[in-house]
């Protein structure tokens, strides 16, 4: 099988602080990581590769040149090839423009059986890029994938899709796109052997390489842009109610709510 995984380098939001004066992110000293949901997508690809010799895994990303570090980590986990789309012309893209660029890069990579991505990136939290890429490539797609099984020697698969109030089981034929959520698997670590792999294959492509229509990528082409970002006001401290019985606790709660004129 030939598998392509879309991945993004993101700031580790666990480490991020916000400047209370300006409301902007303090990015200094914040480590960059492989987006967590994308790590689940890559793990699925690598599990398929482990079980099906001959499978190749290509990771495609878009970002500044330093995003190569993340691709190196993907290779150290076991991916075969990394491609970074990096060009000022695609900078500032919103989800629509980003998916145009990534779809163009994936077309350039050529035929594949399975296209994977994470549900969403922890910096933007839109969950739009994966589905948009699938649309633009004319691929069937299943989002929020939490379980996965290959059928017919890889020609089709049965996937479980997590919804708010239940699951869907869907049979889907290749080629197709799936987006992964963290419940799908536990991503592996880099291996020392993978880190010391001498045949690291990372390509950096610019806008011309992916033959993308320049009027569909970048800040200017983006139909949406961030008007203002701000930090929500911190909520007040919570109150722990104490009481020996459930009834007593409920009475405290009702009293408090009445005192605040909520009920």
């Amino acid at each position, binding site marked *: 099988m030939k598998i392509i995984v879309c991945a993004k380098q993101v700031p580790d939001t666990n480490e991020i602080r916000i400047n209370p004066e300006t409301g902007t992110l303090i990015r200094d000293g914040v480590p960059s990581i492989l987006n967590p949901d994308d790590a689940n997508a890559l793990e699925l690809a690598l599990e398929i590769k482990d079980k099906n010799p001959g499978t190749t895994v290509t990771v495609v990303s878009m970002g500044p040149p330093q995003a190569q570090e993340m691709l*190196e*980590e993907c290779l*150290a986990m076991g991916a075969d090839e990394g491609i970074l789309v990096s060009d000022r012309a695609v900078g500032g893209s919103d989800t629509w423009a980003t998916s145009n660029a990534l779809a163009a890069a994936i077309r350039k990579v050529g035929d594949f059986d399975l296209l994977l991505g994470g549900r969403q990136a922890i910096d933007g939290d839109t969950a739009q890029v994966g589905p948009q890429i699938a649309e633009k490539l004319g691929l069937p797609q299943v989002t929020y994938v939490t379980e996965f099984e290959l059928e017919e020697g890889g020609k089709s698969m049965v996937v479980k899709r997590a919804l708010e109030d239940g699951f869907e089981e869907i049979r889907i034929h290749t080629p197709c796109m799936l987006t992964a959520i963290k419940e799908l698997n536990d991503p592996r*670590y*880099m*291996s*020392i*052997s*993978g*880190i*010391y*792999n*001498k045949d690291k294959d990372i390509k950096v492509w610019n806008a011309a390489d992916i033959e993308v229509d320049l009027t569909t990528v970048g800040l200017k082409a983006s139909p949406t842009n961030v008007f203002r970002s701000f930090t929500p006001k911190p909520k007040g401290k919570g109150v722990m109610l104490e009481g020996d019985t459930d009834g007593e606790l409920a009475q405290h709660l009702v009293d408090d709510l009445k005192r605040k004129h909520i009920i």
Partner: protein
Amino acid sequence: MSFILTKEQEQVQKMMRSFVENEVAPIADEMDKAGEFPVDLVKKMGRYGLMGVAFPKEYGGAGADYVSYAIVIEELSKAWAAAATIVAAHNSLCCWPIFGWGNEEQKQKYLPDLLSGKKLGAFGLTEPNAGSDAGAQQTRVDVKDDCYVLNGAKVFITNGAYADVFVVMAMNDKKKGTRGGISAFIVEKGDPGFSIGKSEEKLGIHSSSTTELVFQDCTIPKDRLLGKIGDGFKVAMSTLEGGRIGVASQAVGIAQGAFDLAVEYMKQRKQFGKKLSQFQALQFEMADMDTRIHAARLLVREAAVRKDQHLPMGKNSAMAKYYAADTAMQVAVKCLQFHGGYGFTQDYAIERFFRDAKITEIYEGTSEVQKIIIAGTIFGKK
């Protein structure tokens, strides 16, 4: 020379921190209290290349360098010294002599399974009456036409009860002693006449297996000789020379782990209306320790770089081990002191670091032996 890690070494550090946080730190206290050998962890470590760090890929190793190996051992030790003991004994004391002294058939036969962690290795040199005086071996080997026959016993053998492959020294000619009288052999679990004896109960590194090895007319085929007859002392000394980088890294990791625990504790513990971290006398102690730990780490890295570049490093690894072990012990003692009464209880991990630190001054050459080696480079050998 560079003091900056390469990109690969940085990635190994990053990978190890994540591996240790998720797979090692959560089980350390419980396994230590139970004195249980971490069989599952060893399998995981094998999968990620920890059981064959600085060995070529053609034999199934991870293809990394010795600085990366030092990083692996340090990061493991920051959370759990016993895990580092298992890895270091396996890599440095069993895989290395087979790689460095074995012939091609021996390398092909043993290294792939060892370096991938499918099999575990151990090293048998120390005897009841031959510790620092390793030349006083009493285990003897009879060289027969078609086999070797070993008789004697080894003690304090790390990984003993769980190992599959052992590199063992035995005396073939007492008169020649260390100058050609000792030979090195590969012994396998299950060889006739070979058994595991008493398992030691120790002050620290409870989860590492430390046993006696017993040879009663232990008969092994001719292809188990490492190097030539009489090379054994050289095999042992060259093995320990590199092995010291592992123990020194372990000592740096124990020191750093104990230090990190103290930093966290001092930021929270209040006495006399102030956090411990606000007392300048304690701050100065911490500044001293931080400096010492860093100096120890640089000594280790220098020895590792020299090993990678095939430069003489006997003195460097001896200095690194001596200084790092001394640092581990001093830092563990002080960091426990800063925990006060809580530090003396088993509820706080610092107690484990305190117990584990001591072994680094003892195994793979005591601190006194390291000083003999260093002094020998100043005044010449006797």
